[in-house]
């Protein structure tokens, strides 16, 4: 995932790389997502996530567009 200072820099990067634009989130949205995604990562009991658990994290973070649809689980 790539950091940018503005929308303009994202457009320049996509044009230079000849790539379509993906999903863009604010730093605050990603901080919220990070806390949901990583808060239990150091726990002995963390064994990864299945599809349903990943979908629930995205839902809690407000990420519900097709971009976040799942093919298979695990992280």
């Amino acid at each position: 995932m790539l950091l940018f200072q503005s929308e303009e820099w994202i457009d320049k990067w996509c044009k230079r790389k000849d790539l379509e634009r993906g999903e863009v989130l604010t730093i605050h949205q990603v901080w919220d997502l990070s806390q949901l995604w990583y808060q239990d990562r150091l726990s002995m009991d963390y064994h990864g996530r299945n599809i349903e658990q990943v979908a629930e994290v995205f839902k809690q973070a407000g990420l519900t567009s097709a971009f976040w649809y799942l093919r298979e689980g695990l992280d």
Partner: protein
Amino acid sequence: MTNDSLLWQVRAFVYSHFADTTHPPSVEETAKHFNIGLEEAGALYRELHNRHAFFLEPETLTIRMANPFSGVPTDFTVHANGRIYYANCAWDMLGIPAALRTDAVIEAVCTESNETVQLEINNGQITDYDLLIHFPLPFARWYDDLVFT
């Protein structure tokens, strides 16, 4: 590999080692810690790689990433708990203070302008800064090419 109890103990050891030292344990260190042979430790590393618990450098037993931690220097530096960590990407630079549950000062490079920016996590709040994070690939393709992702 069938000893899942040991498997997840190794996963936890790798993450604990990253948190405590900022870098991953070698397979030799892991074998010594658990008092097992190198061959068994290597098999456990490969199994955890296959399960996406962490990711090895191709054709090696060197841990490249245990998200959010990076085993190699990157453009995403996280100062936390008196240590300097490297994150795999712009998301993971926030994932490190989230995983460690601590304040942090983060220095990162804008992908296109190449300017270094700094932000902070204080008491669970991120400093007000108008940065954006671009996810180039949809979730379903994240594991096609992890380094690009």
